[in-house]
């Protein structure tokens, strides 16, 4: 059940009105939202609802034990909790990859073995809910958040349908306090939520879908059939597509949660405006980059032990961040590229201090093209295709794939990064005073426009596979 579908619209209308009819009974309301979230998740594969429940029970149990145990045992328990979460993630996501690599390695040394290959279906959103589980256990251990008062809260924290399958990664310290009290819906929240949903629908179903179907997919499928101009357009197109796809999901998730009375953190902040890769990661998938910082980079030592250590740590963090996206060497290479460039940036800062060596415009352009280079690795099925894309950039030939409409979408997708920051909040602030009929008609007309131009059907969000 994808967000931009009629079925989800009907589902959400039912959830919205039922949830608010239970607003005096916070416990029942949460129970209803949990059941609705499980129903939502079961639309992909009902068997994995059991995995979701097991994961929540595990994290709730470990959190409760950590809160009751004295000092030394806590460390063991938190280690156990994190290991159990990583085991679940590793089994479903990386088992096949590592077995395959181990088989290749053994064959290379002449020790060929029949390793137990399994056809494992990847549960949708497993990377997101296991990361949430890890953050809950670690935060309880660090004392950043008290243990949840009951199992229901942890289950809802991990299963809440707006963020369940593709984030943002909402931490316990953000959401558990909101579960404690009956939520309120203000005009600001409702207007903001509705606008985010419409904006997300537009980005996903119009920009991302059109670019994907008409430009990116054909060119990445067979780069040798296209000229360098088309390949460059497809690369820029993918940069816009992945931004519009993923940020659309985050926007809609934040908007849906707002309509139900809950506040999620911002996940994107005009990332292609960044003038360095460090700045890019403060603007792109903020909930993941801050997670990696707090639960990986800082425990590794962060920047406390000097420049060399900080460079090694940031490289390892980005490498594992790449692996988080998928079990493939291309993702590792993508992570290594981002880690390597960040190391260079750190060395540059160490050498030149905070002096502005490169003008901001140049910084933005260079950063954007490094990111685009990374997107080629990220999108290509394998290294051969990635290399074919890079080699094809120099090929001279007619422009066949790029059309005026696609060029407009690419330029528009990049131009939206130069809208005033918090533009949606600004519009919501103005519209919140409008009568409900006026706003309802405006929202309806905006959705009608999107519906009129969207292609039939809708492709799954890119980040569902992670």
């Amino acid at each position: 059940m994808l967000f931009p579908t009629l079925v989800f619209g009907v589902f959400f209308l039912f959830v919205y009105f039922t949830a608010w009819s239970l607003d005096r009974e916070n416990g029942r309301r949460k129970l209803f939202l949990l059941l609705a979230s499980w129903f939502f998740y079961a639309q992909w594969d009902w068997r994995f609802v059991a995995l979701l429940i097991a994961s929540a029970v595990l994290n709730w149990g470990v959190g409760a034990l950590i809160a009751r145990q004295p000092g030394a045992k806590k460390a063991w328990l938190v280690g156990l909790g994190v290991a159990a979460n990583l085991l679940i993630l590793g089994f479903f996501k990386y088992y096949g990859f590592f077995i395959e690599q181990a088989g290749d390695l053994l064959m290379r040394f002449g020790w060929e073995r029949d390793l137990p290959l399994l056809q494992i279906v990847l549960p949708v959103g497993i990377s997101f809910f296991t990361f949430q589980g890890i953050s809950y256990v670690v935060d309880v251990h660090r004392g950043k958040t008290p243990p949840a008062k009951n199992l229901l809260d942890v289950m809802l924290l991990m299963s809440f349908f707006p963020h369940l399958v593709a984030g943002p990664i909402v931490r316990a310290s953000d959401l558990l306090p909101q579960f404690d009290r009956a939520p309120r819906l203000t005009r600001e929240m409702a207007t903001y939520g509705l606008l985010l949903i419409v904006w997300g629908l537009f980005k996903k179903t119009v920009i991302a879908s059109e670019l994907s179907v008409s430009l990116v997919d054909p060119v990445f499928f067979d780069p040798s059939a296209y000229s360098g101009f088309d390949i460059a357009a497809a690369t820029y197109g993918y940069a816009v597509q992945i931004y519009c796809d993923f940020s659309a999901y985050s926007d809609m998730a934040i908007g849906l949660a707002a309509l139900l009375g809950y506040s999620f953190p911002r996940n994107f902040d005009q990332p292609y405006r960044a003038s360095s890769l460090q700045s890019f990661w403060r603007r792109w998938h903020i909930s993941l980059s801050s997670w990696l910082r707090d639960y990986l980079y800082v425990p590794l030592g962060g920047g406390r032990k000097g420049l060399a250590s900080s460079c090694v740590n940031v490289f390892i963090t980005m490498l594992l961040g790449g692996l988080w996206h998928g079990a493939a060497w291309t993702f590792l290479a993508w992570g290594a590229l981002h880690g390597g460039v960040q190391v260079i940036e750190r060395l540059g800062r160490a050498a030149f201090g905070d002096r502005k060596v490169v003008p901001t415009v140049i910084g933005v352009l260079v950063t954007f093209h490094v990111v685009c280079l990374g997107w080629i690795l990220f999108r290509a099925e394998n290294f051969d295709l990635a290399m074919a894309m890079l080699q094809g950039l120099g090929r001279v030939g007619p422009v066949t794939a790029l059309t005026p409409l696609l060029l407009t979408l690419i330029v528009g997708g990049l131009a939206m990064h130069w809208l005033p920051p918090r533009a949606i909040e600004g519009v919501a602030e103005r519209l919140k005073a409008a009568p409900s009929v006026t706003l309802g008609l405006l929202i309806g007309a905006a959705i009608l426009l999107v519906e009129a131009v969207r292609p039939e059907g809708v492709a799954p969000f890119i980040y569902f596979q992670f």
Partner: protein
Amino acid sequence: MTDDRDPPEIPLEPFPVYRQESPFPPLDDGLTAGPGDPWSDRNQNVDAHDLPTRENRLLALGRFAFPPDPPLDDEGLAARDRRWAGRTILVSAAFLLVFNAVSPLNWSRQQAPSWLQGTIQQISGVWVGQLAVFGVDMPRQGVREAWMAAREMRFAGQEPAPPAP
């Protein structure tokens, strides 16, 4: 009205009790101000708002018959905002049900045949047909045609788009 505080030199009484300098030049015909009331006649405790006024009887009757609600507390304000949001969503849904009526029909055509799919397809087919009489499908159709025309556009010298399968 502004939120600025009164300057400290102006007394807080509703009517100033001192004569301010006139900002206008004196009149040419040389009007002379008559002797004012003696200072001792002024009563500082009297406020013009205290004077008895007669209330409109119709308003008084209305207030008696329909007493105004007490001001809303937090709970009441929250309920009012919720109702407002709910109405907004319902208006949007109704708008789309009329102007985007073809959406359920398209959806039902993409589903595997079943009793539910068949029922939705028939009902939405009738709904779309009835609304088309009033031309409410034209805005969506117009936007779609403009979009398709934009998709077909090519740069000068570029080959035209292949025919849709």
